[in-house]
């Protein structure tokens, strides 16, 4: 429970000055022992104390097993000060004494003791006591702990600036290849750990392929790499570099690493929650993420685009569209569209946007501070509402209209139109002065003849009148030119009509392309009040928009007038001085390459998160990320070329005794493949994998009815040969192949997936049509190649497990194939199919060593 002083304190401070947390002692607590008359004392001892002891102390005393509501009633100080909701007793003031309110149980759910209204005469005694000044002989301090102040809080490791770190010089100088290795080796020496040897070439190549592109190497690639490593099996750095460069440059890299970001961005193609409607344009964001990773877009820019892409300058329509699509990040959270109260809906949306932004980028749970100051981290409610104001000033367009949907969507929204030509609007300062901002250009003036012609058309068609009304002058000129050029307006109109036209749809800045995206735009800019305990009907002071104080934000943000502040938020998030952004991302990269982050709670760098196992290494990586222009590929490259990444997963009894969890990386962690890699690996082995990116998504064709009714879902589960990243991710209706193997829950920010092992996975491997059909396809691949069983087995092992079988394994497989074909009455083909299926089903298939 949060200490009551601080809660009360924060409330008071919030109500007044801008200082957020400062030591303050309440007057009541400072007063010396109050003067109490003998009569008052007698009254207290007879009427009040026994009731407090009998009815309240269980939950509200230092001896309570668990103190409820931060309220301690066992001292005068605690009683006067109250708990999370305010003063329990305000001497002489019945209305200001929450204790009295609670005894009456007037407010919803506030009756105390719970479910046991005390007799009227007892309540009357308490009222009398309060009115006589609440005389209370119980001296002594409350036992609640103190919350550190902001200066102290800033000392917490993750809030410290990332400082330059010197690369250590471990005694074992020869072991390290790169700087990364020296950090690792140094830590190992401190712990007296000795790293195991290198992985064998085939194992290493499989690891590298799955980590970088999420696919196994082909048998030819395995054989070539093993050959390059020679009979001794020593891996030459040149060979590794060659493979790494090829993988980093391949389109599959973005599909793999983009998906890591989609986990964090809680990517989903429907709104989920109570009524599940499709997000038909969500896939554009997916493709944006993949393309950004493939282009090695600097991570700071990547974040700025997602938080404020609509406010960034763009050089052409392509960039404008890309940046609009990027803001889909903020639009695609789960939404309860059945909510009647618009304000409540908007504040939920704001909360969700704060949650995803701060956890994804900062590894902090700022949304905890919505109803009370953060219980573990120095994030006051004030900071929450400073950020909330920014998102409250933003319009979210998730494109689920109110027209269809059986009338059940109470919170309709439009899409944002994409453009095919784009002229940047003039600087906002001018527009604030009332200068014309539309994309009218000098050479595109609407002549009276043009206007007359358009009017003639519009008179015949009232719908055109509406459309012309919404057009800028330049757009009208273009419309005129199109009509003159052969009536192309009709076609554009049809395209634009993909979604029902609504008057509140945002106007495109530029010429609409007929395509649409989810995303955000600035709305009416305004600061947000504190909602006390998150309740809409209890508004506190209005908080100027700003950022998180403990991360260096000082006072209100300097926001361009008329804007939401997202652009400033985006810049603040990605400023090199922000202590968390680079650390959090560097940690994520490390996590995806080693199985566990240096901070093993990748979306919680706060007090309840784990501490870094190697803080210097983390800061080194964070520095490298920033100094290499926020290039993710460069960071990945630096790590996978290290000697540490090359270690085998073999064991060592002494090391194990010291560091059983392998926090200090004396060996490689064995890792289960994630769901996508298992499915893609099966498709790759069967030769059925279609590496071309899927176009759009099956979800786009689902219409505007709630999803989930029988027939509707079959489209989603239809056989696809595309990579798993392109499967439709409908909330609550995940594809089986992904759902069974711990896919990221798309309604939640997922920084690290669970690994569970359950029989339903085994049943899937043994009985599902998908696994069987691919086993049959894989078997068929070998039928033409060689009739020699041993050769077939060799190829099958290389294809599925990226290695050759041992002699014993080969013999075992041969015996199985012969027995299956002969004794079970099967054909050699069916025997081969069941053998390939067994390879998919094996534990080795779903692990990298």
């Amino acid at each position, binding site marked *: *429970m949060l*200490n009551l002083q601080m809660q009360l304190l924060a409330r008071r401070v919030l109500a007044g000055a801008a200082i957020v947390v400062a030591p303050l002692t309440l007057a009541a607590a400072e007063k010396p022992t109050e003067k109490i008359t003998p009569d008052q004392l007698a009254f207290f001892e007879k009427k009040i104390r026994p009731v407090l002891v009998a009815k309240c102390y269980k939950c509200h005393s230092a001896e309570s097993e668990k103190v409820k509501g931060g309220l301690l009633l066992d001292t005068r100080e605690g009683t006067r000060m109250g708990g999370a909701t305010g003063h329990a007793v305000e001497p002489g003031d019945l209305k200001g004494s929450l204790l009295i309110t609670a005894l009456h149980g007037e407010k919803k*759910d506030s009756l105390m003791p*719970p*479910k046991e209204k005390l007799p009227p005469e007892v309540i009357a005694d308490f009222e009398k006591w309060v009115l006589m000044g609440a005389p209370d002989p119980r001296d002594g301090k409350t036992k609640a*702990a103190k919350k550190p102040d902001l200066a102290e809080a800033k000392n917490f490791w993750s809030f410290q600036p990332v400082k330059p770190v010197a690369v250590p010089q471990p005694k074992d100088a020869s072991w390290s290849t790169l700087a990364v290795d020296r950090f690792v080796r140094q830590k190992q020496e401190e712990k007296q750990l000795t790293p195991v040897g290198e992985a064998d070439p085939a194992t290493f190549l499989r690891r590298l392929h799955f980590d970088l592109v999420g696919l196994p190497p082909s048998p030819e690639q395995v054989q070539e790499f093993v050959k390059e490593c020679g009979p001794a099996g020593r891996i030459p750095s040149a060979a590794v570099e060659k493979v790494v460069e090829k993988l980093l440059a391949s389109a599959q890299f973005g599909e793999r690493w983009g998906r890591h970001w989609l986990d964090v961005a809680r990517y989903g193609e429907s709104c*989920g*929650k*109570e*009524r*599940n409607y499709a997000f038909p344009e969500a896939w554009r964001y997916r493709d944006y993420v993949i393309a950004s990773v493939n282009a090695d877009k600097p991570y700071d820019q990547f974040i700025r685009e997602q938080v404020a892409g609509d406010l960034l300058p763009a050089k052409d329509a392509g960039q404008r569209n890309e940046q609009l699509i990027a803001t889909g990040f903020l639009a695609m959270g*789960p939404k*309860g569209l*059945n*909510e009647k109260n618009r304000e409540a809906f908007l504040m*939920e949306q704001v909360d969700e946007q704060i949650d995803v932004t701060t*956890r994804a980028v900062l590894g902090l*749970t700022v949304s905890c501070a919505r109803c009370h100051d953060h*219980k*573990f981290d120095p994030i006051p409610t004030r900071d929450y509402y400073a950020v909330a104001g920014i998102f409250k000033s933003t319009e979210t367009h998730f494109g689920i209209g109110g027209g269809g949907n059986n009338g059940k969507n109470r919170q309709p929204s439009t899409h944002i139109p994409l453009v095919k030509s784009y002229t940047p609007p003039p600087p906002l300062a001018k527009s604030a002065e009332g200068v014309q901002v539309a994309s009218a250009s000098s050479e595109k003036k609407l002549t009276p003849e043009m206007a007359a012609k358009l009017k003639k058309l519009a008179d015949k068609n009232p719908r055109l009148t509406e459309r012309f009304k919404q057009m800028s002058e330049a757009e009208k000129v273009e419309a005129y030119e199109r009509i003159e050029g052969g009536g192309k307006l009709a076609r554009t109109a049809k395209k634009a009509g993909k979604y029902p036209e609504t008057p509140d749809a945002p106007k495109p800045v530029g010429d609409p392309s007929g395509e649409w995206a989810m995303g955000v735009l600035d709305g009416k800019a305004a600061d947000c009040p504190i909602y006390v305990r998150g309740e809409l009907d209890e508004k506190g002071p209005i908080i100027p928009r700003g950022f998180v104080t403990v991360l260096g934000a000082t006072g209100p943000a300097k926001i361009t007038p008329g804007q939401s502040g997202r652009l400033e938020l985006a810049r603040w998030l990605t400023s090199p001085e922000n202590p968390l952004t680079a650390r959090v991302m560097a940690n994520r990269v490390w996590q995806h390459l080693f199985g566990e982050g240096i901070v093993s709670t990748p979306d919680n760098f706060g*007090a309840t998160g*784990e501490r870094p196992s190697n803080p210097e290494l983390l800061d080194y990586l964070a520095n490298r990320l920033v100094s290499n222009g926020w290039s993710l590929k460069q960071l990945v490259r630096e790590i996978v070329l290290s000697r540490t990444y090359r270690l085998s997963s073999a*064991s060592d*009894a002494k090391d*194990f005794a010291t560091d059983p969890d392998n926090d200090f990386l004396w*060996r490689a962690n*064995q890792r289960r493949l994630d769901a996508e890699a298992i499915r893609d690996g099966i498709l790759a082995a069967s030769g059925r994998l279609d590496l071309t990116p899927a176009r759009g998504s099956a979800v786009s064709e689902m219409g505007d009815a709630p999803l*989930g*009714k*029988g027939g509707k*879902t079959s489209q989603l589960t239809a056989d696809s040969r595309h990579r798993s990243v392109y499967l439709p991710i409908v909330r609550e209706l995940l594809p*089986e192949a992904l*759902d069974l193997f*711990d896919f990221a*829950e798309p*309604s*939640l920010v997922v920084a690290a997936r*669970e690994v*569970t*092992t*359950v*029989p*339903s996975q*085994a*049943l*899937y491997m*043994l*009985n599902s049509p998908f696994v069987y059909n691919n086993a049959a396809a894989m078997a068929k691949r070998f039928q033409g190649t060689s009739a020699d069983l041993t050769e077939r087995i060799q190829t099958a092992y290389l294809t599925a497990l990226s290695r050759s079988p041992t002699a014993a394994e080969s013999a*075992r497989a041969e015996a*199985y194939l012969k*027995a*299956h074909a002969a004794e*079970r009455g099967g054909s050699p083909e*069916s025997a081969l199919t*069941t053998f390939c299926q*067994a390879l998919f089903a*094996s*534990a*080795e298939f779903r*692990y990298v060593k």
Partner: protein
Amino acid sequence: MNPNRPFDCRQVQPPALTRRDLLKSVSAGFGYLAFAGLSAEAAAYQSPSLPKAPHFPARAKRVIFLAMQGGPSHLDTFDYKPLLKSDAGKPGDKGKLVAPVAEFKQRGQSGLWISDAFPKVAEHADELCLLRGMHTDIPNHPQAFVQLHTGSARFVRPSLGAWALYGLGTENQNLPGYMTIAAPIALGGAQNYGSAFLPASYQGTRIDAPPGTVAVAKKNRKNDTGMNQGIGNIHNAHLSPEAQRSQLDLVQSMNRDLLASAGANSEVEGIIESYELAFRMQTEIPKVMDMSKESAATLSAYGVGQGESDNFARQCIMARRFAEAGVRFIEVCHQGWDHHSGLKSRIASSCAAVDQPIAALLADLKQRDLLKDTLVIWGGEFGRTPGNGSADGRGHNAKGYSMWLAGAGIKPGISYGATDDHGGAAVENQTHVHDLHAIILNQLGLDHEKLTYRYAGRDFRLTDVYGSVPKAILA
């Protein structure tokens, strides 16, 4: 766990070793490693669904939740309000007061007032604990139904059954531990039996209602997806059981090689075990789901083949079969309780569809000596209003309604809590949905304040910061 993790003094309650920690670092164990005498390094695998000890001795070994979706009227069934009858027609909160459409009588030794809408369930009055002071937060179906199942309509949170499975595991490893029959596709869909941030293995397995013998009203079958009549991937279309066993033997010998190799991984042991379980499930699950061995007397007692009750009768028989087989948490769902109009006839038909099956389920559990440790829960997401615009309907009411509990250490034949004179709002011994959840966990031997899971830096509970267990209803 990271050894560098300092004790955080600002946390008044430092997180104890959570079940998740236990789940991830199991020291005691069983299995191949022990037999093989391999190094202690690969901590023995423990299936996440293995039975776990409760916090304190449990009264319930399993739960059957009879979810009545739509908001069944308490005023016409379990909450006797004589004044509502005499004041009918007078103005109320939401329109003129509507008299109960069924007569109330005192039942059994306990003398509980139950209406004629539930004549057969009423015969079991002495087994029931009526919760007449129920209330919830939002009088909207989707939010309230989700809150009933997860405690929160605002956030995506694990379902009640998932928490139960996380806390206790399940007894029969050959069956899923959490089965939900005919759960609505809409109204939150899978969220109502999902695991959210808990490991996916704790989510419910959804099946359609077992196929009926008589044509039933469409509304009673509206939940059927036509997709999951059974449990996924339970049949092999290509291999005989013998051929499949020999294939599995090959898989397992490969797995054991891997386990024996250097740097063995306890998860590999888990995979080996999961295959053996899966192989057994292939024969066990169809057996449990095969109702053909039920006697004619049983089928008839539940109301199979008898018009409106046929569908729900099958669901209840299936629920009993799952209970018997050791499934931890079973939910059956009946929709269509949203009686805004046609109250009299629709109360009659909805009750007719479930009354006999539920009564037979209670009798059957008792006769098999299962009621003593099976917690049966009946109720919907909210109740109905005393007043309404028309005289033959009722609106949504989140402020007061009734549910009932039976079996598993719940005091039988009592009524707990009360609504006001017209049944509009709970005024005495109010029981919030959070309290209901606390009660359910309590009967399962779990302290709702201690059953926590760490997600995003904080320890989450099914009951959030709420919930209390009224001692008065415990036997």
